[in-house]
């Protein structure tokens, strides 16, 4: 398991990590989620040993590895832009960790073949990275990192440079891989959908601090603060009250606790419909309804409706 305690890291005048502590349970798949500049990549690199913290400690399986170089930590690292060894074939890339450890040739051959099958690159062993697609290169990067049986697998926005469809495929694939191997894995992402989809636990970060650590569902249902709530899903803000679009009920008649609003726009997103509204006090908000609900209400552009939250959240302090 991974423990980071009180990590501080500054780059010049910029504080990337402001006393961050986090625990990653053994065998879990944890996501570090946050916007650009939140410090998530920096934290990952500190855990890997690619950055040295200004203060704080890192423990891997109970051992203090803070001063250890990345070579000695037994971590596998996967980079956003693949960091492929351009002058080596796919085979040599994957075999690299084993080659420099001088493992016997037969062992290398067996392990690399295994991994090529695992990542479905078997026919491409003799190609060079430049001849592969982005998705293939990243699978190679994963195989390369796994080749030396790391105790911990760290992925730094691994699918960030890929297009949407490939991203979703690889995401699923990573989750399945994790379910098979149970390697302790940490993935950095700015995509909340990705984090929610793939991880057991999500650590939400912002401006060098941790906002909340929880399983995805709890994060969504019980966000610790405004930032987490807004980051993890769409939200309507009415003064101090936060309402999820799917917790907005639309009625055709007023009833005491409702507020008047006009339908400004109907956006049909397949099964769901997003209804953009303007309230009578001028504020805008959006509601999320199913197609049936919209048809039942016979909603149209310009129609007056009455809105009521079925659930709302207020954050104290």
């Amino acid at each position, binding site marked *: 398991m991974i423990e980071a305690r009180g990590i501080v890291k500054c780059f010049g005048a910029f504080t990337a990590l402001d006393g961050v502590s986090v625990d990653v349970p053994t065998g879990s798949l944890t996501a570090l989620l946050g916007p650009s500049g939140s410090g998530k990549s920096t934290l990952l690199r500190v855990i890997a*040993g690619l950055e040295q913290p200004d203060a704080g400690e890192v423990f891997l399986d109970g051992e203090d590895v803070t001063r250890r170089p*990345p070579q000695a930590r037994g971590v*596998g690292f996967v980079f956003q832009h693949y960091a492929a060894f351009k*002058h080596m074939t796919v085979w040599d890339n994957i075999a*690299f960790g084993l080659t420099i450890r001088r493992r016997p040739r037969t062992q290398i051959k067996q392990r690399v073949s295994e991994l090529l099958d695992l990542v479905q690159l078997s026919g491409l062993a003799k190609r060079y990275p*430049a001849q592969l697609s982005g998705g293939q290169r990243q699978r190679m990067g994963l195989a390369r990192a796994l080749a*030396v049986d790391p105790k911990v697998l760290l992925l730094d926005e691994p699918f960030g440079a890929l297009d949407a469809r490939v991203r979703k495929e690889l995401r699923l694939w990573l989750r399945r891989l994790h379910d098979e191997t149970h390697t302790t894995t940490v993935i950095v992402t700015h995509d909340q959908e990705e984090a929610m989809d793939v991880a057991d636990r999500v650590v939400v970060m912002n401006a060098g601090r941790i906002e909340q650590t929880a399983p995805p569902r709890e994060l969504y249902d019980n966000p610790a603060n405004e930032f987490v709530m807004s980051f993890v899903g769409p939200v309507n803000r009415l003064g101090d009250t936060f309402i999820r679009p799917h917790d907005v009920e639309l009625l055709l008649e007023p009833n005491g606790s409702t507020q008047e609003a006009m339908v400004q726009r109907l956006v049909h997103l397949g099964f769901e419909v997003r209804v953009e509204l303007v309230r009578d006090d001028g504020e805008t908000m959006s509601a999320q309804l199913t197609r049936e609900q919209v048809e039942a209400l016979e909603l149209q552009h310009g129609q007056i409706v009455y809105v009521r939250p079925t659930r709302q959240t207020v954050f104290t302090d």
Partner: protein
Amino acid sequence: MAANAETLSAAPGTRRSLAPGLSIGLSTLYLSVIVLLPLAALSWKAHGWGAISTSQATAALRLTLGLSLAVALVNAVAGTVIAWTLVRDRFVGQGFVNALVDLPFALPTIVAGLTLLALYGPKSPVGINAAFTRWGLLLALLFVTLPFVVRTVQPVLFELDREMEDAAASLGAGRFTTFQRIILPSILPAILSGVALAFARAIGEFGAVVLISGNLPFKTEVVSVYVFGRLESGDSGGAAAASVVILLISFGVLLAIGALRRWVMRHGR
């Protein structure tokens, strides 16, 4: 390319076709007069093939080739080290050092030779006297060939993807292994380019060596000086013959280095 633009919308009265023709015509004329004719003369006048098989000529050839190769090798290492220091290191005065590397390009060769002679010659204040020795020649050639490998390696090193080195570290490679397996293969084509340039320059160097070497036949006489000597004695045929031989050899070596470089690159990217 420009032809398409010409036919598209020619403003009336403008003579477009003049410029390209002018460029080509003038360039070719200029080139022929200055470059090609003299070289043709050189090949034709090389009657005296016998001259090159004299032992003095062969000695000069052997010495020149040996020294140039040695210089190329020293530069391969020194140039890479200096390029590394300029790209990866950070210290006060780095900009000055970077400019300094170009000094051999700017300084007249005779001046370079003179300064080396002053400090490392008969009146040396530090007691090193390399005049009339092959070490003196080596020094002079190292001086004038200094910038080549540095300048070819520098941009490549600068553009190198640092994440590859991080990846190697995360996979367990120490600094030396990372250099050997990741960095070196990536900069090797650039090193070879620089080596080729340094070699070509060293083979033909005259101004820097002429003072410090003393031009002792069989000991410190390089081919360029030998050719000069033949000219002074009126043996232009022998001079031409030796020149053609050294030209052929250096073209051969340059072709070989070029092929080696292409081979390295094909097995790279």
